């Protein structure tokens, strides 16, 4: 029933630390003892004096972030990282995917496998591995990809969920498009699913919904981990009487029903600052109606939704011709997770509408619904939708386009060749992603 988290690179470690913090706070505040115990068992090891140690491995190629992360966790007083659960080097990967993947990955493979193995051995039963990394840098993206490959080899029957952070459109790292292309194309071969958070989308949530004036990465990470926690905390799947024992496995089977489609996006409602929260009242019909339209109109948050967009069923004969209704986001599969008061009364029929989905899969297999009556992270009612849909198509297309344009001038390619990634490797990666783009476009 345990999940091991592997945090790679600066972003991965910063998000990871915030993730465990959210989980710990949420379960500590939960009045339901079963929920609390299940959550603790899943994500933490409990010591003799009830101190919690996160089931996590921290990896980075330079020491500052890991030291900071470990210190921050310890300072909370509520949980900490294991003493020997981290691995770092001194020099960093220089934002170079090739350096992370072809040099650091193989070089430190043994050490990393060992660390993971030791953590896994401390689980009664391992039900899934979550990796956290960014696409833009060198360690998270390059080495993270290599590590995922190793984990796939070492644990062939365990579900691996790759959580990736998509960088800002206007650039954090100049070669971020190359790094993103290389990462996604490789992950596609051996990952079970790639769950994406886009910095731009999360930034908007912070600015418009949370009303934060000076948004820091800390704020961004709080939103991301709120989303993640709402998916991975204990929940009843199907109509069983106990919390799901295989959350990640069931996650995969609900959402990834075809190997060509692995990109997942996540939406959550409601989101607001804690001061506003105290004065707000929610009802399920309202929340679900907004969430459904957020899906259809591909909106990342509940403000600024285009209500004019409608779901339109594609007829079976349209398959093969890309249909582009104005702004409609077609789904392959959706997973709805409801938490809080009166969940049993929530009417989720709107998500079973065949018009939302592709015609070549039965609707029953396309929508799954989980629930828990325990309120999550301070929200009396909270609904999350994880989608395998065309949501990320525009961003993916844009990133691949920009990377291709840069590649056409062969700018920066000498930096990658220095570490063993050739032009051929680039072309292969582009081909894989063009295929993914094509597949999603034609839904």
């Amino acid at each position, binding site marked *: 029933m345990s999940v091991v988290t592997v945090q790679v690179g600066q972003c991965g470690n910063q998000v990871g630390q915030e993730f465990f913090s959210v989980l710990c706070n949420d379960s500590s505040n939960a009045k339901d003892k079963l929920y609390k115990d299940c959550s603790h068992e899943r994500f933490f090891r409990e010591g003799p004096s009830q101190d919690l140690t996160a089931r996590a491995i921290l990896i980075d190629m330079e020491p500052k972030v890991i030291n900071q992360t470990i210190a921050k966790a310890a300072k909370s007083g509520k949980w900490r990282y294991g003493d020997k659960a981290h691995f770092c080097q001194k020099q960093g990967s220089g934002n170079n995917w090739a350096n992370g993947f072809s040099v650091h990955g193989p070089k430190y493979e043994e050490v990393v496998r060992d660390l993971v193995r030791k953590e896994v051995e401390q689980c009664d039963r391992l039900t899934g591995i979550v990796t956290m990394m960014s696409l833009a840098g060198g360690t998270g993206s390059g080495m993270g990809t290599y590590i995922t490959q190793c984990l796939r080899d070492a644990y062939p029957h365990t579900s691996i969920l790759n959580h990736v952070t998509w960088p800002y459109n206007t650039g*954090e790292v100049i070669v971020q498009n190359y790094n993103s292309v290389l990462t996604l194309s490789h992950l596609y071969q051996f990952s079970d699913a790639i769950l994406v958070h886009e910095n731009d989308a999360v930034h908007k949530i912070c600015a418009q919904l949370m009303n934060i004036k000076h948004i*820091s990465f800390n704020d961004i990470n709080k939103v991301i981990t709120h989303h993640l926690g709402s998916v991975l905390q204990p929940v009843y799947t199907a109509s069983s009487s106990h919390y799901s024992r295989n959350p990640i496995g069931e996650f995969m089977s609900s959402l990834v029903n075809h190997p060509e489609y692995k990109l997942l996006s996540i939406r959550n409602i409601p989101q607001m600052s804690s001061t506003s929260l105290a004065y707000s009242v929610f009802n399920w019909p309202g929340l679900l109606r907004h969430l459904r339209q957020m899906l259809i109109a591909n909106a990342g948050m509940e403000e600024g939704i285009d209500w004019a967009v409608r779901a339109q069923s594609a007829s079976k004969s349209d398959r093969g011709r890309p249909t582009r209704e104005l702004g409609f986001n077609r789904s392959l599969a959706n997973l709805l997770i409801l938490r809080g008061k009166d969940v049993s009364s929530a009417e989720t029929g709107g998500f079973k509408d065949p018009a939302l989905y592709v015609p070549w899969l039965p609707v029953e297999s396309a929508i799954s619904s989980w629930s828990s009556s325990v309120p999550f992270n301070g929200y009396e009612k909270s609904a999350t939708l994880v989608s395998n849909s065309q949501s990320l198509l525009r961003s993916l297309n844009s990133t691949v386009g920009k990377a291709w344009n*840069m590649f056409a001038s062969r700018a920066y390619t000498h930096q990658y060749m220095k570490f063993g990634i050739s032009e051929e490797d680039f072309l292969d990666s582009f081909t894989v992603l063009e295929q993914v783009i094509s597949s999603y476009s034609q839904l």
Partner: protein
Amino acid sequence: MEEGVVNEILQGPLRDVFDSTQLITDVSGSGNNWAVGHWTYGSTYRDQIVEQVRRAAEHCDCLQCFFLIHSMGGGTGSGLGTYVLKLLEEEFPEVYRIVTSVYPSAEDDVITSPYNSILAMRALTEHADCVLPVENQSLADIVNKIRHMSHSGKGGSIIKKDSTVISSQGGVSGVEKPFDAMNNIVANLLLNITSSARFEGSLNMDLNEIAMNLVPFPRLHYLVPSLTPLYTLADVNIPTRRLDQMFSDAFSKDHQLIRADPKHSLYLACALMVRGNVQVSDLRRNIERLRPTLPFVSWNQEGWKTGLCSVPPVGHTHALLALANNTCVRPTFTELRERFTKLYRKKAHLHHYLQVEGMEQACFTEALTSLSSLIEEYSQLDATKGVCMPEAPRLNIAT
């Protein structure tokens, strides 16, 4: 290669920071002659230099980068400096070499500085990973600007004492010497570039990341630095407007450390290293604001590398270092070439160089060719400025 400067350091407050085994000096200097610095002293001290560098490197757990600091116009810094650069590449090929070069201004008092500079340029182009060119004239202009502000005290605003980019606030030396103010600027440049390596931050930017992101083609590695703010006003409240002003200033030609105007040339890449109490939203807002005013090359329209370090420099609440890989270095190089050609055509002072063992006429012609082809590469990129380049057609996937 002469003892005066080094001795002064050894007698000053920094004497305990340096170890006598780390020093190599000679007596007579290079006479402002690149050939003497490069060939004569190079071959004489080669082994000793390699030995000392190796010894220093062995003390490091993980050696990432060499900083080479020198001037281009003289004999030792320029000649022996570039010799050492080549040496470092041979002996430590995997360690980055970042070079801070002080370029001579037009009014330089060393007559042969164009020769020395062009001869050194070739080594910089071929053996350095990154070069941060700095011009004395720009530094002097910045110093004057700050002094002027301090004395005039524009309408009620008073500059906070000792929080200017030229003060050695936080440093240890006592009496101020002639070039101190200008050198402080360069020191601050180096401090800002290494700040992410030394302090924590929410988005670290290491030295190898600078080399990776700012050098799209191996030879085009000349990065124009600019530092803002130049001074902090005594007013403690920093309104957002002032923060935004800091970003705008970084792109103005008055704040560049060489005489160049990046806004009117073509950006290949740009890095922003922010220190202090600045958040990612401030960074994003300013990038979005400034981006439309800056011409970027077609294949790198959003080419920004950003870093956030939590610790500001001493005396400031926040600071920004901008490094631009921009074609505005072309006029600087072209002008240098012209000064060179003026002398070379008349064969002025040439004999001083040619009589040095190891030096040949070919060294001059090759150096000139190297610089010309570098200028040509920048020109070709410049020609694409403003031209709407069609996007490369994407790969076609059979459906």
